[in-house]
């Protein structure tokens, strides 16, 4: 019953609905670019002021775990894209499989980031304001680096959590047969969101982990 395309009242036809929905998501992603952009700008400025402290901070992060997380996210983008494709083709079981995989990979990312990396940093005394025990030279600027590390990855993780919530809703909707080749737009725009969150990480990883002056 619900697999027939549901045209919302305000739209004249499905095409208008589809286009509006996608366009709306792109506009929203533009706002997200500005949101993260502000934070990136502040980070880059401080890195410029306090290069050695920020490089030292960067070296204290675990590149391998970061790389693993990057791989996890990239895979999740793949599964998400495949899920969108499945929705386009009307393949319900495949869609659900890919959505679940994406969700699991996303949760894995969050688990690694929070459970492994953040926990490690906290225990080692590198958590500004909460547990900062490092008192060596230039510790204040190092603390600033870690502020940005936690803010950037934290806000990113928040977006991942929201994404996980969206995926859950999609999985439920897919399970109830709400998507069809005529109406799969929610999956598509959620895919756009997911890819965006992935791209933010692609910027975060090098800017935080890889520019410690060790190469």
């Amino acid at each position, binding site marked *: 019953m619900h697999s027939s395309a549901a045209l919302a009242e305000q739209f004249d036809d499905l095409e208008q609905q589809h286009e509006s929905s996608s366009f709306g998501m792109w506009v929203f992603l533009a706002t997200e670019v500005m949101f993260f952009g502000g934070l990136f700008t502040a980070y880059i400025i401080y890195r410029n002021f306090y290069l050695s*402290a920020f490089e030292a901070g960067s070296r204290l992060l675990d590149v391998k775990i970061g790389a693993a997380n990057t791989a996890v996210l990239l895979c999740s983008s793949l599964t998400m894209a495949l899920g969108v494709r499945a929705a386009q083709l009307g393949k319900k079981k495949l869609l659900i499989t890919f959505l679940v995989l994406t969700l699991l990979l996303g949760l894995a990312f969050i688990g690694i980031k929070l459970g492994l990396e953040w926990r490690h940093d906290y225990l080692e005394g590198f958590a500004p304001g909460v547990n900062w025990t490092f008192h060596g*030279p*230039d510790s*204040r*600027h190092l603390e600033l680096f870690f502020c940005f590390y936690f803010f950037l990855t934290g806000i990113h993780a928040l977006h991942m959590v929201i994404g996980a919530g969206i995926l859950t809703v999609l999985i439920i909707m897919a399970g109830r047969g709400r998507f069809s080749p005529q109406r799969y737009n929610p999956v598509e725009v959620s895919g756009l969101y997911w890819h965006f969150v992935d791209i933010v990480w692609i910027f975060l990883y090098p800017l935080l982990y890889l520019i410690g002056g060790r190469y």
Partner: protein
Amino acid sequence: MWQGFPIRPEQASTIARGVDHLYYFLTAVDLFFTALIFLTIFYLAIKYRRRSAETKATQVEGNLPLEVIWTIIPLGICAVTFLWGSSLFIRNSRPPEAATEIFVVGKQWMWKLQHPEGPMEINELHVPVRRPIKLTMTSEDVIHNFYVPAFRVQKDVVPGMYTSIWFEATRTGRYHFFCNQYCGTNHAVMGGYVIVMSPDDYEQWLSGGIRGESMVSAGAKLYEQLACITCHGTGKGPPFVNLFSSQVKLTDGTTVTADEAYIRESILYPSAKIVAGYQPLMPTYKGQVTEEQILQLLAYIKSLSSGGAGQPGKPTSYPPSLEGGRQGAGNQTVGGQQSPATVPVPKGP
């Protein structure tokens, strides 16, 4: 000006008239265009009023030449105003050579003003007339702003950095100064008076009253008391002779100018910049020196640079290119302590 209803503060500095002239020009432009628009609206709205329900409008789509004209003319006025204002601003921002430097520390909710010869004032500033005065300022807590309407100058006073303004008073008298950046509960009462005196009266004022030490001599004392001398006087740390305004090479290969900000940072955050060829051994003095003491150490270190009386250097918030010279020594902002015979012979390393 019409007695009893002033439209501008007294013109008590060398730049006041210039600023006022530009202000009058802008006022004339504003009033002219406002009147033009209001009167045109009046005229058109009355001439073309709807006399009855049958009154028809004549449709006029637009007029390209008119659009061009009323874009170009405002653009022209803006260009003139911008050029006038910027050139005046640049000129007004450059302290003349031989400006007397006075140091200002703002804090919630009072001002401490330190003369190089020693006297320190609270919420009052005595200065001689017709002598350029440069104020080098910092804050101990939040952002403040030192504003003297009669001189037409103000600048934010920011914690963690030095900002500066200069003025040359043209008339004796008492002129209000205010804190002009909201800074908390008693922001509105954080002000005082600049008291401009004749040179003779000023000398008398300087020598009367409680005579503090000159800043250079206080700084020299701190240099020993805080044990700076144990490293910087023995080769373990970089020497201070001719340090101020020089180019310093760091261990990471970069070069910086040893200005006020660099020296202040080195006292508080010594590990931030290590001079090439030295070890990162210096402990921090954060929490052990007040902003005033840092200024005294600065005065002392400046006094050790060539020129004998020291070069106060340019305000650190301006890029070198606009100071008309390269960074550091030899620029136009050279000035020195003005008071006679009170600068001690520097006890250098």
